[in-house]
């Protein structure tokens, strides 16, 4: 369980997050939505222990990400930043293998190799494993990065706008894959994902946290948040919400 209490974050003079308290239970996909500049990405980075908050605290399954040794933290929570600028020329397999780094610290064993191959297979990257990242499309590269984060084997996976470079098919495939992998069986991990596309959240999230101006506008089960009234309160515009195969679909009015 992730517990955030009274979290505030400022960048220079600007206060980005104000007094945020929330808990995220284990399992499933939790989506963080909200207008641009609401502080979604900052909240994710604070939870991962990569941005130092100006106040409040974070616990990830009881672990304080700001206090724990770096590699302990990386074994508890893995974050994939939004469109990371990878200048390094690595092959896909080399990149994904770096996901194991917090576990072996430079001396990989057979288990690390096995989990690397497993992550490659999970995200359909085995045929691309020996290709250089440079030669991949934006979507393939994004999948390789998600696979690296997956190989980290952390119970918590935090993804910042993972669908950005993906065309609709790969976006659906990725969310579907994450959905399956966060069910109780065979292996339950927990995913927290920042998404600006409301319908991607509506289609796949189990829970939604809606941020507005650095505060929590609403949070709860997906169907409770995806209502015209709540969305209007968060985004300041009118939406229609229709039901499609038991999932909400949000249409801007």
């Amino acid at each position: 369980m992730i517990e955030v209490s009274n979290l505030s974050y400022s960048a220079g003079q600007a206060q980005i997050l104000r007094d945020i308290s929330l808990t995220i239970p284990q399992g499933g996909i939790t989506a963080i939505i909200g207008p641009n500049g609401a502080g979604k990405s900052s909240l994710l980075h604070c939870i991962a222990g990569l941005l130092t908050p100006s106040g409040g605290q974070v616990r990830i399954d009881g672990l304080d990400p700001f206090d724990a040794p770096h590699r302990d933290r990386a074994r508890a929570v893995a974050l994939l930043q939004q469109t990371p600028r990878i200048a390094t020329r690595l092959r896909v397999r080399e990149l994904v293998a770096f996901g194991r780094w917090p576990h072996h610290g430079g001396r990989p064993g057979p288990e690390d190799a096995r989990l690397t191959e497993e992550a490659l297979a999970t995200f359909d990257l085995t045929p691309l494993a020996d290709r250089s990242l440079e030669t991949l499309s934006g979507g393939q590269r994004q999948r390789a990065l998600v696979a690296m984060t997956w190989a980290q084997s952390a119970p918590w996976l935090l993804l910042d706008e993972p669908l950005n470079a993906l065309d609709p098919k790969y976006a659906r495939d990725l969310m579907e894959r994450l959905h399956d992998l966060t069910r109780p069986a065979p292996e339950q991990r927990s995913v927290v994902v920042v998404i600006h596309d409301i319908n991607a959240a509506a289609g796949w999230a189990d829970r939604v946290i809606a941020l507005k101006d650095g505060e929590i506008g609403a949070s709860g089960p997906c169907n409770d948040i995806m209502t015209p009234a709540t969305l209007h309160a968060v985004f300041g515009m009118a939406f229609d919400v229709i039901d499609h195969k038991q999932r909400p679909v949000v249409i801007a009015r």
Partner: protein
Amino acid sequence: MRLPLIIALVLAALVTASLCIGAASLFAGDLDAGFLIATSRFPRTAAALLAGMGLALAGVVVQQSVQNRLVEPSLIGTPESAMLGLLAITLAWPGAPIWIKMCSGALAALAGMAGFLGLARALPRHDPMLLPIVGMIYGGILMAVGLWLAWVTDLMQYLGTWRLSEFSGVVQGRYELLWGIAALAVLLYLVADRITLLGLGETQARSLGLNYGQTRALGLGIVATIIALVVVTVGTLPFVGLVASNIVSRWRGDNLRANLPVIAAFGAGAVLAADILGRLIRYPYEIPAGTIFAVAGAGIFLWLLNAAPARAHD
């Protein structure tokens, strides 16, 4: 053929050539060939190999640290900073032992890099060419300060020996400090994975559990020491780090666990080749290896600027 074997053969050929070529012939019989090799030819060959290896490794560490493959120490003012440190210690303590001078140079080089990183933070990151341009201006300003200081204190001659690498003056007893580079190379190899992780960028590297600040400080500390060692013993050589790491990266990628030895060998071989060429072009006179490398390196740098568009940074 396996790569290590090819590298070993090429280096062996260069070393043999370097030991045999010089103004005096080993085979004329009018002097003791063993003595000549032990006191002059071997030290000179070792100095070129060690300096080349060190500069190549320094280049790749700097590139990973700032995630830009168009920079290297000589393009961000590091040798110039080291020279300022050497000038300062020469003025403050003229009779200081050489290792004290080296330490002063290394500390100044580190301070110079910290200054550059401060500048780099303020730069927009969308254009990879901005970093080397700002770095060259920064280095130019530091050099101007050094020149002024050397001029008013009558130390221009010292500055001249530090500014352009020249191996003809290397004899037994005057280059041994360079073996420190071999030790630093081993240290770098031990942290090769961490240096590769630096290249993923701060957020991603930290998310993978890397102590980013500490790793970068260690890497740049090694770079500063290498540069100070090279400047104080043989003088700086531009472009070695840029050329070696870029060519190896294009060829074999950036997994430094696998490629650091190749980069080191490439730098060592290239500098030794430049030195041999410098001895041959106007035989029996010599052209400094630094001059040879500056001409070749500038050409390769221009090629890289054109051949490495968005990919250099994206």
